[in-house]
């Protein structure tokens, strides 16, 4: 774990320090408010300072996150936050990287980066505000939309089986896989703190209802269904039960930490990072010895 992460909570940092320059323009009631707040609290609880953190997002309602947050931020391209974040983390392995985005952004157009960052185990936290819809483009199906769901692009109902981001992440090698619910902020904060402290690629898929475009999966839908894994003594090392529980979608839907494992991160295995601080801060000119080492084999 990098030092900043385990630092004692610095007395002076509060969640307000992470409040952005502008207030979110999300619809009143949007689940994303809760996620924003949870991250602010989690980071201040961990004692991190704004400049020790970067939030990186794609494009979407949820991806507007960095603009509402006071930390380093990158509002990149639709679907590309994980790729950008891998570059950031490689060039500055000391900074805490949090990717934020939507289900369309992360599992639709960005799906391939999601697959590959999982197996690379890049040490960052990925928060997906999964509202099972494309919010910003005013309501089309997303890869997690339920079968039969009527949207502007599926006026007769969705015919594509939704994908399950948790089982996908587990199978692809993610080392921390959890699910949160915007309607349970305490629990969500706990998960976020846990994920940030985990060394490796952490996914938290968060039910974050879109109150404007998804009337099927709203708070009323989730409230009676959501169950906490923690209440059942789930063992996060057991990937099979994790997958089984993750696949449940009916009267009981689980949230919590489904899976956790320890294996070296991409950065851990990168010899260039063994010493010398972030490569983004190192002197860049070649030394005489390096120059010589280049020329010699050419002769």
């Amino acid at each position, binding site marked *: 774990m990098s030092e900043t992460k385990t630092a004692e909570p610095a007395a002076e940092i509060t969640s307000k320090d992470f409040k952005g320059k502008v207030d979110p323009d999300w619809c009143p009631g949007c689940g994303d408010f809760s996620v924003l707040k949870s991250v602010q609290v989690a980071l201040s609880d961990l004692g991190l300072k704004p400049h020790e953190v970067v939030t990186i997002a794609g494009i979407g309602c949820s991806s507007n996150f960095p603009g509402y947050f006071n930390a380093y931020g*990158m509002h990149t391209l639709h679907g590309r936050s994980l790729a950008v974040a891998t570059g950031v983390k490689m060039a500055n392995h000391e*900074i805490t990287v949090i990717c934020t985005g939507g289900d369309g952004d992360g599992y639709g157009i960005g799906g391939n980066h999601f697959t590959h960052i999982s197996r690379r185990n890049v040490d960052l936290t990925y928060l997906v505000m999964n509202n099972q819809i494309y919010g910003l483009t005013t309501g089309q199906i997303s890869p997690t939309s339920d079968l039969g769901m009527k949207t502007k692009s599926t006026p007769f109902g969705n015919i594509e089986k939704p994908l399950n981001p948790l089982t996908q992440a587990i199978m692809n090698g993610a080392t921390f896989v959890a699910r949160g619910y915007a309607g349970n902020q305490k629990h969500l904060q706990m998960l976020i703190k846990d994920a940030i402290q985990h060394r490796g690629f952490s996914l938290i898929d968060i039910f974050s209802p879109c109150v404007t475009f998804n009337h099927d999966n709203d708070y009323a839908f989730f409230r009676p269904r959501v169950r906490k894994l923690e209440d059942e003594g789930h063992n996060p090392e057991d990937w099979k039960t994790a997958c089984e529980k993750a696949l449940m979608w009916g009267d009981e839907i689980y949230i919590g930490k489904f899976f956790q494992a320890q294996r070296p991160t991409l950065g851990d295995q990168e010899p260039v990072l063994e010493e010398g601080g972030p490569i983004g801060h190192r002197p860049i000119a070649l030394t005489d010895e390096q120059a010589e080492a280049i020329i010699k084999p050419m002769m």
Partner: protein
Amino acid sequence: MKDATFDFALAIGGAAGQGIATPGNILARMFVRRGLHMYAYNAYQSIIRGGHILLTIRIADAELPCHGDKIDLLMCLNQDTLDRHLPVLGPGARAVYNSGNVETGDAPEGVTLVPIPVGELTDNNPNKLMQNTAFIGVTTALLGIDFEVLSATLAETFERKGQEMVDLNVSTAKAAFDYTHENFETFPDLVPSADEPLAVWSGNDALAMGGAAAGVKFYAAYPMSPATGVLHWMANNARKLGIIVRQVEDEIGVANMVIGAAHAGARTMCATSGGGFALMTEAIGAAAMMEIPVVFINVMRAGPSTGVPTKTEQGDLWQMLGASQGDFQRFIVAPMNALDAFNTVPELFNLCDAAQCPGIVLSDLLISEGTFSVPAGKINLQPEIDRGELITEPRPADDGGLADPGGREGGGYKRYELTESGISPRAILGLEGYVHVVSTDEHDEDGVLISDEFTNPHKRRLMVEKRSRKFEGIVGRVAPPELEGPADADVTLLGWGSTWGVIHEACEQLADVGITANHLPVKWIVPLHGEQIVEILGKSKRVIMVENNQSGQFARYLRGETGFKADGHIRKYDGEPFMPHHIVAGVQEQLADNIEIYVPQHEIMV
């Protein structure tokens, strides 16, 4: 070649999998160690075994701009090679082949056949590679080189494989060497030697080294011919140079990853070819909008689409010009040869850092996969590095000034401050005191989006103009193209990028046939020295543009920027590079007013 007293081209032909590279490397090493200059072009196909490869290695005692027109010595590793190329060999040339498995054809007048009974000389060794070693022995003999030179090189080459392999190769080569001296005459011009041994690199090596010299600390790639060599160089040298090298799932990932790493302060680079570049285009616009400097290398091959992956072309210019939506500037530079490519990369990095924008190096297969000698002394691995208005030191909050009224860290720092130059000091991510957000959405000075709640046509206009302003006068920061050759020539040849070498040599050949030609090679595409180019061309008697593509991509672009229209064009788009005589013929046809666009027919079938 005007300056050369010795100018010789040998070619090795065979199928993929016959191990052409090894004899090529051994011979090349022998020559450059002697201080001879080398320019090698390999004509090959996109398969691992089979097909037909023709590796042409030209050597001379003066710098070589291209692989020339002729083959003096052809080594046929198989029947196909002899069948294809014997008919187009010129007087004085010789064809070496294994008389044990290749049937001879009719040699053109003046061409000497050199049949070698490889089986006999190797005691019928079943190792097929022995033929290659035998042919090296033959070549060494024909060129009058001492056998010791060859045996030393063989020893070095096969060292890794054990003494037995060394001995076998040396004895095979010796047998062939002796057989040749017994049965054939040496070439009239024997190989000279110069003082200083030269270094050898490919264009891709040069590009990668240029990146290393510029201080690249993060390199990402997805393999794609003919750009993969850059990845291989980087991967091999990563550890000793402290460069993180990542192979990524696709080119989209590559482009976005280098942007991320660049924003975290590293100089970052990536290389691909046209199809991969197509996938990167969206990210290029993102880099422009977030104002993050990154260098993209596009190594062109024959298109469109998958096209002819192992063949060269200058067909991607418009893709570079149009990459990504919206109006924004990107540097585009097309180096003229490997050394130029090497020197260009650090220069481009300095420009990109200065203007905080993406830059593109436009190379092609001819440069990137060619193998060239280079005097080691010309390789400056410690060029000037200028990172522009980059903030790299933290500014603690108690230093005052950069907290916003709400007391939030960094809130007073304006990443996109409206300055006179359009350049806003850029703080790399992670510094204390400069907390800010960068965005691909249009934003205000402080990074806040104006694309949603705050769309504001006045602010939007200011930001567009700010970004545009960064490039005012930037053309003055790079060297304008210079006319090579006599100012009052009959004809001016206007080329860009990799055609520099072949046009250079064509000018010499034109002089030999009584046509004075000068040459204006353009390297910087964006920024373009429009005024200077028009001024130079305005004095020309007749301007002929030379391009390795079908539609005249540079001609159309140049006309759009300057209004200039050339008198004629020489174009080639069959996958093979120009040879000097193609250009000579094109100029002759045009001077005779026979044709406006001349397209040479490539004689060598590969």
